[in-house]
């Protein structure tokens, strides 16, 4: 009888507690308390999504306007405006609007008129200055900006016209992540095969925790090492131009991904029943043949799950990429610099005005990141769960 089965049976027996819980109300209460506390994990995931999305929400309703030059409404027309128009025009929340009296609102409108007067006349004529750059069109597609030769994707949240195109950031994230995975996955899966199938038990017991120790190195230390040591060494070996580029960041990301991929792949390979290997060996195969032709195919979904979860880890890693490279360039070349989504959030949140368009867009990026890793985790978990059920012969 498996231990799982016993537990199930026992908890069934505890249903008989109905008689007991009247006799022991405190215990009944304590058990309800345990249940309530354990729900906090679900609550937290919901709260994360809710509150990251909440800060980005005004952007999604199209309530933000980042245009440097906006239509100015003279103060004399105050009475013609509906509360909703006024709220939109002054960029207020409903509660703020309700809290202000007529005089305050009118002086706010005057401030707007004066602010416009201070903008240089030449800039006022620039068509770009009237664009609300927080619209989806400008977030996702290239635009022909004044003084640029051709339509371009630009992330440039400072300056008079703030450009928030997120495509360069997506490319930056994908570029570093893919380099990291290409470096980490073969190494980690190779090591997982070695440790779980080929190594002697004593070697395994030393090597496995040692590799897992790699995950104990804080990412800022990996970033520091990449910045001070690896960048120089790799430049000498490969002889490229920019010292700090997506390649260095990717390799450093690989260091962070290796323990993740290794432990999941190793877990999957170990859960393949011994009988498979023994049968192969009995038929005369070598240990390698058994591992490569029998065990690995059986555990392949697990290797896939390991890669997916490694991808999630790499795309969410912040400090390493932040320290190694940060210039935002629209290029797929891995020897150019890159600015990832995480880097952008970490570096720019401090200077973004709370509640402003920049702040909202950073939260939007965070929400996107959360959604992506959420889906990746889900895929990884489902694949691993099914694989284990399958290998245990329960399906």
């Amino acid at each position, binding site marked *: 009888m498996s231990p799982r089965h016993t537990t199930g049976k026992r908890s069934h027996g505890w249903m008989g507690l109905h008689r007991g819980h009247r006799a022991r109300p405190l215990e009944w209460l304590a058990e309800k308390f345990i249940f309530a506390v354990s729900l906090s*994990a679900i609550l937290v995931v919901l709260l994360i999504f809710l509150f990251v999305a909440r800060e980005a929400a005004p952007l999604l309703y199209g309530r933000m306007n980042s245009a440097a030059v906006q239509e100015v409404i003279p103060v004399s027309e105050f009475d013609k405006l509906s509360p909703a128009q006024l709220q939109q025009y002054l960029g207020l929340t409903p509660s703020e609007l309700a809290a202000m009296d007529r005089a305050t609102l009118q002086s706010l409108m005057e401030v707007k008129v004066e602010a416009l007067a201070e903008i240089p006349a030449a800039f006022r004529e620039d068509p770009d200055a009237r664009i609300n750059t927080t619209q989806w069109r400008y977030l996702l597609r290239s635009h022909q900006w004044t003084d640029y030769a051709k339509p371009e994707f630009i992330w440039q949240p400072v300056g008079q016209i703030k450009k928030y195109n997120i495509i360069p950031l997506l490319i930056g994230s994908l570029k570093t992540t893919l380099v990291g995975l290409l470096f980490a996955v073969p190494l980690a899966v*190779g090591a997982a095969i070695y440790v779980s199938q080929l190594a002697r038990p004593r070697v395994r017991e030393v090597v496995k925790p040692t590799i897992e120790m790699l995950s104990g*190195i804080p990412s*800022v*230390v990996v970033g520091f090492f990449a910045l001070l040591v690896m960048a120089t060494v790799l430049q000498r070996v490969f002889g490229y131009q920019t010292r700090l580029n997506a390649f260095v960041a990717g390799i450093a990301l690989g260091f962070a991904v290796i323990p993740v991929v290794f432990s999941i792949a190793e877990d999957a390979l170990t859960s393949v029943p011994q009988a498979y290997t023994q049968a192969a060996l009995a038929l005369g195969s070598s240990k390698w043949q058994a591992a490569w032709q029998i065990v690995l195919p059986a555990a392949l979904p697990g290797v896939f799950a390991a890669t997916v979860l490694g991808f999630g880890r790499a795309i969410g890693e912040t400090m390493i990429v932040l320290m190694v490279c940060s210039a935002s360039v629209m290029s797929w070349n891995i020897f150019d610099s890159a600015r990832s989504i995480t880097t952008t959030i970490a570096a720019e949140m401090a200077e973004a005005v709370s509640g402003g368009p920049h702040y909202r867009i950073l939260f939007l990026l965070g929400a996107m990141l959360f959604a992506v890793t959420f889906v990746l985790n889900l895929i990884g978990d489902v694949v691993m769960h099914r694989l284990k059920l399958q290998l245990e012969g329960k399906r």
Partner: protein
Amino acid sequence: MNEVRSQQPAGRSFRAEGFDYRSFFFSGLTGLATLLILAILGVILLNIVINGLPGLSWRFVSTIPKKDFFDLETTGVLPMIVGTTIRVLVMTIFVIPVGVITAIYLTEYAPNTSLVTRLLRAAVNNLAGVPSIVFGLFGLGFFINFIGKNLDALLHNPGPVWGQPAVLWASLTLAVMTLPVVIVATEESLKAIPTGLREASLALGATKLETIVKIVLPQALPGILTGGILAVSRAAGEVAPILFTGVAYYMASLPNKLTDQFMDLGYHVFVLSTQSPNIEQTRPLLYATVLVLLGLTFALNLVAIIIRARVRKKLRALN
């Protein structure tokens, strides 16, 4: 016999036919991959220890630095050590009870097939994979902008007291982040306790809760400890979640309230390595700081891994 052999595909030569070069080559390749990973770990650690040791001194770890902290001769890391320690300790106060109780529910009470259990497990797994920067955003959006600001409004504070970055918010953010670490480690150690022990206790007339509190939990203590240590070690090295929730670039004095900001070792490493006026000159200082950080997180991690390996061995022996 000959006929059978000739039907074998070319690649699958039998061991008995002589030395199997293919197997040898590929086994060697996986061995090399393993060695390379170990080498990476070794090189990082050695590089930091060798370059960091000369800069390390008692004065260095016990000095509060002046505004300009880029000079190895006069600067120190005391406020960073204190800041990191405080935020991690406050975190454990929140995360250990919640994590342990959740693990108890999952192993002792949760019906295996119910929707709630499955949701709970999915949530725990998912939480473990959320990027650390997203936790930072969550801390800013929820703890500071929602709870903190509303608390200020409720208490009629003239200026922001709770609605700004603080040790408390950083610790809470980290607690949310390390919750799955504690849950998984505790669960593992709870599963390693023989069912017979619980049954014996029940047979003697103890209630389920009594069994858990008096029999199961004391046995699971090493595992809970491991979970706590792993969480502490993970949190001590994390920088991204505290960037917007409490860390300060420079503070002249140590934090003494939960609403104070704090200096942090990991963040200090980041500042030193990216904002140094002269990286060659500050290199020894940087290495010494990294060594202190690594000493703090790695020593803890090592202890946790050793305890965990023992728990796992016990678990394997049971199954």
